[in-house]
């Protein structure tokens, strides 16, 4: 791969050169530039400085300055998912979107919203709820997670099944590029094919191509009434998988479908219905028929917190996101079970009907976790799936956060080099060292 440039794709910002931070003060005001503390480290890599620009112009100016001074930058929103991805090769400046916190325009009659990147998901949802609307995603830690961070990590939960992922809901972004360009792509109407779709390109790019400064989304009405959740206990993971496949193959319009499996209890399947009371009732009846081979165990919306609960006391556990074919959810559970039992580990899985899932592994010896993750990943990749390690306990050793990016990796490298030729943004954090 000629374009890879030695060992560090996308180039490397120098870690050592002397910098005159006063220039940064001049750009965004000395009050908003401060020395970084231990809490600002990204995966154990300390930063020197934290800057909080007031708006996207300032942010772009600061980024350009850093780029020209060869200062490696990590964009930061709510800081809830800074542990996702690989550790940065170098880091000197944290560029926070904290002050980019305006909801620019909620065109409720058009079901769209434009918000700055630093707006928290919680703040956005409560503003949208005033008009009976929502952004139909359910990310982790919504009170602190920001729009920019959620987009950059492509975080999605159970709602994805019905409403699609962020890629299907984001309709426009403004990006600050390392050279200081502020570029917009997409727009604020729900239908638009003018130019390349950069909103999708930067969704899930972990801030390695540009800093998202604002985004526009299409919205959905809030469900008219409290929805209803049914939970069924299945005799085995294959029964749980069978139920998922049957519900998916039925004409039911559920808004959530997940399997929960763990080392010590039988798996359960949760399905949620929203809509009119009559519609919900009829669908529950159909779902119960389909689930006749399982045992109905409850009706609680609490089950939808299961994904976030995987992170409880995560210091001692690994948490990874996986993606498999929906028909292979049971196989995925078996793979995890085998790997976990071999290392004497506890395991838990929350898998959605889309084939996306999350696994938690807990071991007495963190070092054992690494081996388990490596073998699970290899098995998933053989079945066209993948495993992304979002959290690893201290002492579990270095392990690539993503697995194989496939044969399009050279294109990804070239994209990175076009957008960030000096490797300023989050160097080394992304797939394959990008």
């Amino acid at each position, binding site marked *: 791969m000629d374009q890879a440039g030695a060992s560090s794709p996308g180039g490397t910002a120098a870690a050592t050169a002397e910098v005159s931070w006063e220039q940064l003060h001049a750009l965004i005001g000395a009050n908003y530039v401060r020395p970084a503390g231990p809490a600002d480290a990204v995966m154990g890599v300390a930063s020197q400085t934290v800057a909080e620009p007031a708006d996207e112009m300032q942010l772009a100016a600061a980024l350009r300055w850093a780029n020209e001074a060869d200062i490696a930058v990590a964009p930061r929103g709510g800081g809830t998912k800074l542990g996702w991805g690989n550790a940065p090769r170098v880091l000197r400046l944290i560029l926070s979107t904290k002050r980019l916190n305006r909801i620019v325009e909620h065109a409720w009659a058009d079901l769209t919203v434009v918000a700055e990147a630093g707006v928290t998901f919680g703040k956005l949802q409560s503003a949208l709820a005033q008009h009976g609307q929502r952004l139909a995603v359910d990310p982790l830690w919504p009170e602190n997670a920001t729009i920019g961070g959620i987009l950059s990590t492509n975080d999605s939960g159970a709602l994805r099944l019905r409403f699609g992922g962020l890629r299907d809901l984001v309709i426009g972004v403004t990006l600050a590029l390392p050279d200081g360009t502020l570029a917009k792509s997409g727009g604020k109407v729900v239908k638009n094919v003018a130019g390349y779709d950069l909103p999708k390109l930067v*969704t899930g790019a972990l801030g390695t191509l540009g800093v998202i400064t604002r985004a526009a989304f299409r919205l959905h009405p809030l469900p008219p009434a409290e929805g209803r959740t049914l939970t069924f206990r299945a005799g085995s993971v294959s029964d749980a998988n069978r139920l998922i496949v049957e519900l998916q193959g039925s004409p039911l319009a559920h808004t959530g479908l997940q399997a929960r499996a763990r080392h010590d209890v039988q798996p359960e399947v949760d399905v949620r219905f929203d809509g009119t009371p009559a519609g919900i009732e009829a669908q529950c009846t159909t779902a119960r028929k389909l689930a006749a081979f399982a045992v109905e165990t409850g009706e609680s919306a609490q089950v939808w917190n299961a994904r976030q609960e995987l992170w409880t006391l995560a210091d001692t556990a690994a948490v990874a996101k996986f993606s498999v074919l929906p028909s292979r959810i049971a196989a995925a559970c078996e793979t995890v079970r085998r790997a976990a039992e071999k290392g004497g580990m506890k395991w838990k899985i929350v898998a959605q009907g889309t084939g996306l899932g999350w696994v938690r592994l807990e071991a007495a010896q963190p070092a054992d976790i690494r081996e388990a993750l490596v073998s699970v990943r290899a098995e998933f990749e053989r079945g066209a799936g993948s495993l992304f390690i979002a959290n690893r306990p201290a002492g579990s050793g270095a392990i690539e956060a993503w697995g194989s990016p496939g044969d399009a990796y050279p294109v990804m490298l070239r994209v990175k080099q076009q957008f960030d030729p000096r490797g300023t943004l989050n160097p080394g954090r992304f797939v394959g060292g990008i």
Partner: protein
Amino acid sequence: MDARTLQEFRAVVGERGLITSAEELHTYECDGLTNFRVMPEAVLLPESAEQVQAIVRVCHRERIPFVARGSGTGLSGGALPVEHGIVISTARMNRILEVDLTNQRVVVEPGVINLDVTGKVSPHGFFYAPDPSSQSVCSIGGNVAENSGGAHCLKYGFTTTHVLGIEVVLPDGAMVHLGGRTLDTPGYDLPGVFVGSEGTLGVTTKVILRIVKRPECIQTLLAAFATTGEAGAAVSGIIAAGMVPAAIEMMDNLSIQAAEAAVHAHYPDCGGLLLVELDGPSAEVASLMERVNEICLSCGATEIRVAQSEAERAVFWKGRKAAFAAVGRISPNYIVQDGVIPRTALPRILEEIERLSAAAGIKVANVFHAGDGNLHPLVLYDRSVPGQEHAAEELAMRILELCVEAGGSITGEHGVGEEKKQMIGKMFSEPDLETMQLVRCAFDPLQLSNPSKVFPRPRLCGEKPGRYEPHPLETAGIAERF
């Protein structure tokens, strides 16, 4: 083109797969936008991805530009050949390779016709959701390139939502796989940026599509209003009531007349016609349909019909789907325009279009995907009347400017192609366009794949990006960054 290169092409695709005679080449000199024409040097009809790869390798070595072509129904000149270039037609790559009902995925070659995907899976209760009006003829490869939409995209999303993976032959001849069978494959969302790239990033050779389970119940309502303004108010009422219909389509009187003349859909003769389709669980649909009925009545509907059978439903749709072609019945020539506005701007923009149309003495028939604000003004003219064609073109472009001024887009589904590359600068600033072209440089630094489309000026790859300069509109305080 020199004989040696032609010979090489012939060796790849065989005698039957190579077209070089002028009279046969004529078929390929334009797409659905017939006022742009360029003769290609040759047309190649490969039968496999490997043949596409072999062709592109030769093109790369000889620096021959190429344009991929599906069914040639595009309406923005996307498949228009380029000077001294070849056309790669996917007409012979039309196999459905795999159907996986359990995981709701289908793998197809790019030349497969959109409707054939639904045809293949409908016996099992599934359908392929994106439904452009041209679905009985357009290809999946073309749909991917244009990110095509259709009436049901309001609820189900556009082509991009339904494409999980794409096999692509890059302009340097490398074959790569973007995305895959499972969601969120590691790395950048390259399928996301490839879909809608209008053939400028490489040639699609396989596509992994998502199919959708047919809903339990589908109901279609047709409502007649005295004016498009009233019909528009009903659309707003439906959305404000928190519903997401599968489709909401609107037609004005002129397009109703055209559709009637062509396919006899028995539409009421009225100023504004709405088609509203709801789908989902039967109980849900029944109660929502009542609401829609009430809303239409309260907005002044003079007649409401709900299709009582699948056959009647098909007739409701027939008129709408035939609208573009039908206009040919009432006007010798016409331009199919495609623009988007925030839905709430509909009444204002329609009035403005009417005003402009009267001032220019050029009739405009309106058909839209009203639910998502996608307008299709059909600008009618007669080429034999001196000056009319020009006036019609001006009017069509002026309508796009209205869309941009209203915060919308110059294209909702037909693409920029050749036709609108000068207009895209009205929507995006120079730095915006330069940034998009960084992607182009990553995929196609030599600009061989459908060059000269989409962007008004190619970016020299490797050239240092320019610094950000505020857009003149911004300096003037008119436009914020969207």
